[in-house]
């Protein structure tokens, strides 16, 4: 069992660092198409900020409510990814052929751009949720997690 940290310094820094890390994660995610980064890195950074929240404030505290909630979204990111692919299938193309996303008013290359962006978001969500989920299952006993914070298992 990992106990919440009671040093004031750590908690104050946590309040400052965690939102910055989350913001940075989102930045890396969105700008993955222009520079290094993308879904994986963005997702991992967001995951680590949430893990930090759990470690600093404890899993039951109000500050790690996002981290607790995110555990319920298991698989949602993957479903977004598959959904984009499935839309292409429905649109008449092959799986993940973004040309068949059929977004009105966009040429083919822009549809690919949108496709990449959406799938990146899916990847980031999946990575973030899984990162937190693995960290939580490695550090807490099943019954230590409050009812609403527990993973669906």
């Amino acid at each position: 069992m990992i106990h919440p940290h009671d040093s004031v310094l750590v908690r104050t820094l946590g309040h400052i660092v965690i939102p910055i890390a989350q913001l940075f994660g989102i930045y890396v995610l969105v700008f993955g198409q222009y520079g290094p980064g993308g879904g994986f890195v963005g997702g991992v950074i967001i995951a680590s900020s949430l893990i930090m929240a759990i470690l600093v404030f404890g899993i039951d505290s109000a500050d790690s409510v996002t981290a607790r909630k995110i555990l319920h979204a298991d698989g949602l990111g993957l479903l977004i990814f598959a959904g984009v692919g499935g839309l292409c299938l429905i649109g008449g193309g092959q799986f993940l052929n973004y040309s068949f996303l059929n977004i009105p008013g966009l040429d083919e290359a822009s549809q690919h751009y949108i496709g990449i962006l959406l799938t990146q978001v899916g990847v980031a969500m999946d990575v973030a949720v899984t990162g937190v989920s693995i960290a939580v299952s490695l550090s807490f006993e099943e019954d230590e997690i409050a009812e609403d914070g527990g993973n669906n298992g």
Partner: protein
Amino acid sequence: MTIEIPLLVLLVVTAGGAILVKDLISAVFILGSYSFVLALVWALLGAVDVAFVEAVVGAGLATVFFLLTLFRTTAKARIIRRPPAPWAAIVGLPLLGLLLLYGAGDLPEFGDPTAPANTHISPVYLENSVADTRTPNAVTSVLMDYRSFDTFIETMVIFSAGISCVLIMRNNSK
């Protein structure tokens, strides 16, 4: 090349440290620095995306996972004995080493721009990335578009890893 050599030496040293250090928690921290040195080497080789992923995933997430596991063990369990060498390793490793040398015998020169890997398919990605997908970062466009199915499966690997962890830990806590 000149900056690389010290980094490569550092790589071997950190790997050796992670392997040889007796205290598991120190070993994990050294492993984190190993990952970080690896990320530096990759950044030097022009693989910025890989370096970024390695720095965040290898040095960050992997270290966190290791530490979270170790924090739940007692200090007694973390004491390490000296390992005896099993015969399978003594026989198998030199063979594998010979195989590695054999396989590398006529690999293309390091960094050769005319090597097959650099001339066969990869130019297509570089030339068409912007026109096809409006994405200047060719790594992202290959990762999420040209070979997006691999990425999809990989995301599935991560998902099943998360599910697996929950299943294993939950099942055993009873």
